[in-house]
């Protein structure tokens, strides 16, 4: 399987996040779960913009941000490659996202009188599925 085949990106026009951010977030996820590994070559700007039906500027912006944040490296004439990102960094990024989601869940639960025990039981139920 080629590395591109395992990269899955789906952009949503109804998502409030701008397109370039949806691209960066999904590439970060792909790195975190191992779909993209350090030194893997990313698709070219043109390949990705054609497949996702967005402008090259959108993909360039996404790659620029990824590079600034240290997720990828661009080598002139060769393309962009996944950087050596520490698993801790990837994990803590996801933890921040989960914190935001959990905040919403915990607050909602409190409003409706759902207890911590209920939530733990729910988590267990989901894990057993």
């Amino acid at each position, binding site marked *: 399987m080629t590395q*591109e085949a395992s990269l899955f990106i789906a952009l949503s026009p109804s998502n409030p996040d701008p397109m370039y951010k949806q691209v960066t977030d999904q590439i970060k996820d792909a790195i975190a779960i191992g779909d993209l590994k350090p030194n893997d070559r990313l698709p070219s700007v043109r390949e990705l913009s054609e497949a*996702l039906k967005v402008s090259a500027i959108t993909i360039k912006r996404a790659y620029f941000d990824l590079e600034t944040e240290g997720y990828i490296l661009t080598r002139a004439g060769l393309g962009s490659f996944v950087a050596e990102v520490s698993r801790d960094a990837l994990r803590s990024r996801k933890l921040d996202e989960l914190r935001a989601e959990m905040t919403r869940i915990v607050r909602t639960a409190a409003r409706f009188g759902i207890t911590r025990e209920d939530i733990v039981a729910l988590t267990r139920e989901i894990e057993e599925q």
Partner: protein
Amino acid sequence: MDAILEARNVEKQYEDFSLSGVSLEVRRGSITGLFGPNGAGKTTLIKILAHQVPARAGAVRVFGLSYGDGEREIKNRIGYVAQDPPFYVDKTVQWTARFVAPYFAHWDGAHFYGLLEEFRVNPLKKVRHLSGGQKKLLSLALALSHGAELLILDEPTAGLDVVYRRALLDRLRTFVADGERSVIVASHVTDGLDEIAEDVCILQDGRIVMHEDKDGLMSKWKWIHFRDGALAPAVVGRLSNLRRQPFGDSGLTEDFPALREALARALSAGDAKVENAKLEDIMVSLIKGA
């Protein structure tokens, strides 16, 4: 079903075009959007519903009355905006209002002039000197000024800029807000009327290919984006408009609830995503499939 307008098996024959067996209902208090490609028969159907041209066969009942014995009452209670409103172009807007007022039992001049002000149409101008959009607004102001309970509109947003289009959409929403008054409007899907229509009727080649409430429609039609190989071939086989791309495939389903279970695993693993379809997608898909 509390129908304010009912058409049964309406037929119309032109040399190169026919409406065949068209049946539809407009619910009390709702906005029904009539959509379809150019030449599908939207204008012909609208004209028949407003009794501007006769049908060759079939029945149209408005407020429970037929045009045969209730024409005068029906026309007092409907507001009609033609695609190309027929005005005396050398007369002024004011003259036009004075000309049509006696035809209506409940003409409200103050309301009419208030609307003209809101629409920024100068009553002293000759109709000839109005832009296409202003003529539409004049026609709409006339339709809204005699206490109509049903509006029958043919492409009312044509020629309107975004500001007046927004104003028109807001007016229509307000019009039906009392739950008694209704609208049927022929239009293109991309002009905002698809957003406010509660019932959707799609016409193609003189036939109705879909007539459903939009919430129901939107809960069933979805785009599924999925990682290559994440869905069983049997599931993929139930999708239409398949697009295979290097970074993920997509397909359209017209019955998402029936697929939900088959998709559950891929969805929770992040290997598939669901996206709302647009009315435009649905229309294009139906027309391609026909």
